[in-house]
């Protein structure tokens, strides 16, 4: 028996002039004790549909529906207020935004408990502690007094889930609950959702754009496209035997394809960029610690690691936007000039950058032509009469038309905006292109297009690239060599193929395993990576990964491992140290120790 039954639900946004139907006569059901996934690209109406169920839509939205059955009761219309919060609750994408900074999480959960149940403060507190324990805080009592800003993103999301469970809802709506989280933490949260369903018998509606997420936890799935449900069924049926063409397309896109890379010729490679023991600290926090790496001419170097591990700081130091505290950054043998705010920089137009969010990387007040011309003239790369031709050339190079030059950024879609960002970088004919998470703000179908474009441009121009991503899957088939960063340290580097096939550093292995595949059978078999919640006390002199490492030994807690080099591969782990080497014969070829 289905717990939630929705029949012919439509949502129309009313503007002054016209109505815009976002959800079109959608019918579906969700079962108790099961997770039902809703998948679709951004703008397909997933979030609107969920908000309609909660009755949280803005005033200009008009909802039409035959009925919404929750259990036996029709909750459509006036009854919505009564069930919201008590029988249906919701968790959102960004937990740090909707947890109250001014109250401890224990207080917030206890307040929620008291809002729905008649009980004393003490009982509510005890219940809050139980809930925190349920979502994996241990010991829960210690976390009752914490504020949300003292917790990491993953822990905030756990607290938010605890709050949503406070009223023992029959239905929990989770709108992209793991999108803002790292792959490792994402695995934990998904594991938690699965456990909650099993233990409490709640039905969960899980909205996600990520097929991997859906495949790993859901039992049924609905595929949405432009406000309509185009396919629904058991996860296995939909993923293995998709019927609708849109579902097929989504699934084929989410499996990253092996891609022809630009292959270097063997022989001497000249380094275009060299980093020697580069360190940067912000206050007490170490963003980048003693990183040394080099990028050869004409290759793409991938840099992976979870968010906050110092990738972006590193990128900004390479461009000269931030000054490193210590160490050397050499571009073409010369130290990179730090760009002050007022001073014009002299050379170095050779290093350009593609930013993560195209929305903030384009000036809303400038036309495309204005932006590109300005870049050209500021760098004195071209004379005034050449400018027009250059603008057209570069727009065509990134797959746009010459006529687009007189439009404003807001007239373009997300993917086109990212093409414009690329155009601005390319118009200066750079020799090193830094791409900081170039696709993570885009839909999956557009991600592939942009990555293809980057590869194509690189093949044509033979420029070197630094491709930064939190998603190892993006880098896997798009780079020649890869570096793995963890908490500001470079822990492993080497040829991408080898590193991905056979990781040497324990963290690399964890990172590789955390990639979710859109294959229900394999995704479910994968064990969530267990990580200890609270940081161990360890001081400065320990391997940064030691608290979480399964191969940890005594020396890892006392000393910080240096980079050990074997041929093309480098790894910072004691498993590969000289000491260990003594036990090996002289002709030993180093392989993975894990």
């Amino acid at each position, binding site marked *: 028996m289905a717990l939630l039954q929705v029949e012919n639900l439509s949502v129309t946004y009313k503007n002054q002039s016209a109505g815009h139907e976002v959800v079109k006569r959608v019918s579906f059901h969700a079962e108790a004790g099961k997770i039902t996934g809703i998948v679709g690209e951004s703008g397909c109406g997933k979030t609107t549909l969920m908000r309609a169920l909660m009755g949280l839509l803005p005033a200009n939205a008009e909802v039409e529906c035959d009925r919404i059955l929750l259990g036996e009761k029709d909750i459509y219309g006036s009854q919505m207020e009564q069930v919201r919060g008590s029988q249906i609750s919701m968790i959102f994408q960004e937990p740090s935004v909707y947890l109250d900074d001014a109250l401890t999480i224990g207080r917030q959960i206890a307040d929620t408990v008291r809002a729905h149940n008649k009980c004393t403060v003490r009982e509510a507190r005890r219940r809050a502690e139980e809930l925190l324990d349920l979502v994996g805080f241990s010991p829960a009592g210690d976390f009752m007094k914490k504020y949300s800003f003292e917790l990491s993103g993953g822990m905030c999301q756990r607290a938010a889930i605890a709050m949503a469970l406070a009223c023992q809802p029959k239905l929990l709506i989770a709108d992209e609950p793991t999108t803002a989280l790292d792959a490792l933490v994402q695995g934990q949260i998904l594991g938690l959702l699965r456990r909650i369903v099993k233990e409490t018998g709640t039905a969960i509606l899980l909205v996600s754009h990520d097929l991997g997420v859906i495949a790993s936890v859901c039992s049924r799935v609905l595929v949405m496209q432009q406000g309509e449900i185009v396919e629904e069924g058991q996860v296995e049926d939909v993923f293995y035997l998709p019927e609708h063409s849109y579902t097929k397309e989504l699934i084929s896109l989410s499996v990253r394809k092996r891609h022809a890379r630009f292959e270097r010729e063997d022989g001497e490679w000249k380094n275009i960029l060299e980093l020697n023991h580069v360190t940067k600290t912000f206050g007490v926090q170490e963003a980048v610690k003693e990183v040394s790496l080099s990028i050869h001419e004409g290759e793409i170097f991938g840099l992976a690691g979870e968010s906050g591990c110092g990738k972006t700081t590193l990128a900004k130091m390479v461009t000269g936007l931030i000054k490193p505290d210590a160490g050397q950054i050499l571009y073409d043998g010369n130290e990179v000039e730090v760009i002050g705010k007022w001073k014009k920089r002299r050379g170095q137009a050779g290093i*350009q950058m593609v930013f993560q969010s195209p929305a903030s990387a384009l000036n809303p007040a400038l036309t495309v032509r204005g932006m590109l011309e300005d*870049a050209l003239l500021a760098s004195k790369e071209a004379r005034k009469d050449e400018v027009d031709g250059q603008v057209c050339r570069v727009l065509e190079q990134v797959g746009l038309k010459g006529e687009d030059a007189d439009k404003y950024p807001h007239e373009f879609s997300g993917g086109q905006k990212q093409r414009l960002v690329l155009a601005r970088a390319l118009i200066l004919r750079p020799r090193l292109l830094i791409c900081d998470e170039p696709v993570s703000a885009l839909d999956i179908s557009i991600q592939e297009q942009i990555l293809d474009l980057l590869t194509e441009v690189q093949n044509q121009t033979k420029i070197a690239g630094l491709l930064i991503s939190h998603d190892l899957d993006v880098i896997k088939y798009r780079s020649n060599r890869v570096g793995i960063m963890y908490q500001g340290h470079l822990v492993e580097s080497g040829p991408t193929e080898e590193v991905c096939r056979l990781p040497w550093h324990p963290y690399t292995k964890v990172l590789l395993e955390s990639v979710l595949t859109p294959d229900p059978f394999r995704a479910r078999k994968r064990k969530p990576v267990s990580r200890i919640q609270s940081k161990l006390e360890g001081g400065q002199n320990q391997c940064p990964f030691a608290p979480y490492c399964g191969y940890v030994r005594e020396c890892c807690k006392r000393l910080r491992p240096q980079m050990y080099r074997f041929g093309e591969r480098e790894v910072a782990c004691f498993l590969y140290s000289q000491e260990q080497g003594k036990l090996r014969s002289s002709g030993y070829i180093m392989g993975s120790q894990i």
Partner: protein
Amino acid sequence: MRQMSKFWKNKYCRAGISILVLFILLAVCVPLVSSFSPTEQNVALQNLGSSPAHPFGTDKFGRDIFVRVWYGAGISLLVGVLGAVICALIGVCYGGISGYAGKKTDLILMRIVDIIDAVPSLLYVILIMLVLGASVGSVILGICISGWTKMARVVRGEVKRLEQMDFALAARLTGAGGGHILWKHLLPCVQGTILVNLTFLVPEAIFTEAFLSFLGVGIAAPAASLGTLIREAKNQMRIYPGQMLWPMLVLCMLILAFYLIAAGMEQEIGKIQEG
């Protein structure tokens, strides 16, 4: 231009602009066309009521109030617009530099603003009027001395936010200098906010001028602004309330017109930013 037509579509803007255009036309044409001079006294025409020849009547010196009101409105407009534009120019430049420079320069520049703000602004104006004498020029100077600080704060905040955006970083990467980034990349993004604030500054300046003239430290007789007219009519308020009513009404309408335009522009810019 695209934005201008949007503003015209907004009903508040349209009402405000209509009133304003009408008042400007009257302020320019009436003193030119009318057969009465705004300053010449005529004993034969003292304290007349409204009539076809004198729509607003005449004052105690026999001057036509209709002509004097529109002549005064012209001066009020001149003071208001000129004062506001100068304030805006200083404020935008100062705030832009302060917001973009950051750190120490920002700290010093903003503390200077705090000091200027700490002294009541009317004090500056009155002191300047006493030293330089009462004239249009000194009123504008007085208004400008402290009137720009609000604009500077607004622009500084916006520039500080925009300066962290990726497009500003990208502009630095292309090799553009600081002044160029500020002028070509950052300030154009703030133009809407600047425009709205400028529109709010005009009625404030008009009001300050009228207030000063009413106190007797503003524009000196026989020249007249709306404030002066109200002050002159004050003495006979009980006998001839009409003499006070007309300049007050025009002053109110004038200020209202600017507030309407500003409110309408704020709405439209909000809509554009929301997308």
